[in-house]
């Protein structure tokens, strides 16, 4: 038996033991915001990134710790490939943290407390759209907007592009112009980036007029083949064929793709508003970065694919639920903490503002004028793993797969995985 299999099996064994000991209860522990000691150590499993470092989180919670004698907060980074897999492993080994600071799939919701129906909870960004069984189990400090195209203004000038494209047709034409001017038209990368960029572009088309599209897909009333995804996949296939998006893009890492864009080698880069932080901190940029909303099929202004930024959940298994709730309330309501959080990644929240750059203001304007928001490739109604599958399918366009086959693969995957 392989050691990995043995470890997985052991973890599973522990999980069953934990489950049996806990009586597999979904309602154990004190009520949200209720009991629990008001002193002790709170363990926070956080999504650590180049921006959201351990030091960042420690600084964020420092005022709370200072004003709560006897309370300590330990920031833990994921030991697995990501926060959710780490949480899964910690749950089965019986050492789950008190708080998780990361976006999680709804499948985890049953392990989390339902936040109280208070105004401080309901007023957090996108709290409604992420409800599971009518319960808010994640509260965020802000909102990320992702249907954005960052562009190199110098490249646009050299390519003779005077106004940013609005429709897919204009976007395609501009990619060709950028290539003609010696630039990589659209910067992308391998890893998770390819599929994420695609969903940032195509999700407003998929979900803009029908927020319940995924639920309808689960009932087999709609298909990917007849959806906006097909239109975008066909467009993407064309971009690869004409060389506007280099075939060897998948050999890039995410960070390299940012570096390449900031080095001025590519014309456009589809990315979430968190890219502002990288652009703002870049030194000696040889060009000015602009931003516009992702193109739509008909040229209309798209809804923004949005996600909760820096969300927090509290584990049912936490022995410090009351204290954990106090800490989460502080993190999502304290003006200084929220502002610091928003500023760290260029995020947004109604009623909050912070001094930003010209680029921050440009993104803010797009957010303000967007006709609404749509979800990403995870959330209520979306089968776990769909984001990964979408990424694989979009990447298959680079390896010679046709858009028709790619969209058929999506339908096939969904049929096989629905309700798993």
């Amino acid at each position, binding site marked *: 038996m*392989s050691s990995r299999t043995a470890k997985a099996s052991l973890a599973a064994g522990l*999980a069953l033991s934990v489950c049996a000991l806990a009586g597999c209860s979904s309602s154990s522990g004190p009520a949200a915001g209720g009991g629990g000691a008001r002193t002790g150590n709170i363990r926070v499993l956080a999504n650590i990134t180049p921006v959201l470092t351990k030091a960042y989180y420690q600084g964020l919670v420092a005022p709370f710790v200072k004003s709560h004698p006897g309370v300590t907060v330990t920031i833990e980074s994921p030991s697995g490939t990501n926060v959710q897999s780490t949480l899964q492993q910690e749950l089965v080994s019986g050492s789950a943290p008190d708080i998780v600071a990361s976006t999680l799939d709804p499948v985890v919701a049953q392990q989390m407390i339902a936040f109280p129906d208070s105004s401080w909870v309901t007023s957090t960004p996108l709290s409604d759209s992420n409800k599971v069984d009518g319960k808010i189990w994640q509260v965020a400090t802000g909102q990320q907007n992702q249907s954005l195209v960052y562009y190199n203004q110098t490249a646009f000038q050299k390519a003779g592009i005077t106004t940013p494209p609005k429709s897919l047709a204009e976007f395609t034409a501009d990619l060709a112009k950028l290539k003609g001017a010696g630039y990589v038209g659209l910067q992308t990368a391998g890893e998770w980036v390819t599929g994420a960029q695609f969903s940032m572009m195509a999700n407003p088309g998929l979900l803009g007029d029908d927020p319940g599209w995924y639920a309808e897909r689960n009932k087999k009333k709609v298909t990917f083949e007849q959806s906006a995804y097909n239109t975008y996949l066909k467009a993407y296939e064309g971009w690869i064929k004409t060389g506007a998006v280099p075939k060897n893009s998948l050999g890039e890492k995410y960070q390299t793709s940012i570096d390449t864009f900031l080095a001025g080698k590519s014309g456009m880069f589809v990315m979430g508003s968190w890219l502002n932080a990288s652009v703002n901190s870049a030194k000696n940029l040889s060009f000015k970065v602009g931003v516009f909303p992702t193109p739509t099929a008909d040229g209309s202004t798209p809804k923004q694919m949005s996600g909760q930024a820096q969300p927090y959940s509290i584990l049912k298994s936490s022995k410090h639920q009351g204290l954990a709730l106090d800490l989460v309330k502080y993190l999502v309501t304290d003006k200084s903490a929220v502002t610091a959080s928003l500023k760290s990644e260029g995020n947004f929240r109604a009623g909050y503002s912070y001094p930003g750059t010209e680029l921050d203001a440009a993104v803010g304007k797009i957010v303000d004028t967007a006709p609404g928001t749509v979800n990403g490739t995870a959330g209520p109604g979306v089968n776990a793993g769909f984001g990964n599958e979408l990424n694989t399918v979009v990447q298959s366009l680079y390896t010679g797969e046709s858009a028709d086959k790619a969209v058929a693969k999506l339908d096939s995957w969904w049929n096989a995985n629905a309700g798993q």
Partner: protein
Amino acid sequence: MRASKESTARPAASGAAGRSARARARRRATTADIAMMAPPLVLVAGLIIVPIAIAVYLSFTDWNGFTSPPHLIGFRNYVRLTEDSAVRHAAFLTLLITAVGTVACNVLGLGVALLLNRNNRINAFLRVLVFYPYVVGAVILGFLWSSILGTSGAVNAAVGAKHSLPFLSDPTWAVVTVICVIVWSSFGVNVVLYLAGLQTVPDSVIEAAKIDGATPWQTFWRVKLPMLAPTVTVNVVLVVIGLLRVYELILALTAGGPAGETRSFVYNILTSSFDNTQLGYGAAQSVVLMVVIVTVTVAITAARRRSEQAVAA
């Protein structure tokens, strides 16, 4: 030993009494044996047998790793395995990596061991150099080679955009790259094992072969290699087991891409279990992998044993 002492101490004992004493002695010996074996038995049961049993149980459930309790769904996960193109591709790739990697690691390992089988300072340094990749973590090596072979990596930067090579972006190139990096990072341990094996070949036998007029090739083929047979078995089994569960290096080097083309079987198990939160399905894949590893290991060992016995005869 204990029984023989008793029989010499009481030679006049009657037949029935003697049998009874011997039986008591056997029972005491058995009890002592069990007492001594208990700790390792508990460890083996706790760390191997019980987890395997639980993994097998989970493979018949739809458990997602979070909600509970797991629901039994019969053989559905196993049926799904046969229909899942991602699993089939991962299985094929893993077998390809294992087949090519096993041959390459052993041929390279033995070849380099033969070159380094003389004790001097340069060889000592070269041995360390060859073994070094094996010591460094697979994830670090993956990222290192990714930065060397990526589209914007050192090699492509050196050759320029016009001659850019798709080491990690083209499916065929990516598979070849993955196999090469895996072999490069793994064969150091084979070198060490073959070196150890070569040290056991008596100088007198080699001298005798030389006196008999054997060429270096004949000496290797007819003398050294047959005597290295047990080492070859160990090396082949180790490499096969290692390659059947290759994962970390691929994660860091290609993240399974492009388009899932370099996703190995274990990579797929972890994707199913954690990314797709289908732990039951992942457990079914783990059970299949476990069966394959045990079968292949037993088969190789048996085949090599027969071969060694044939040589000895």
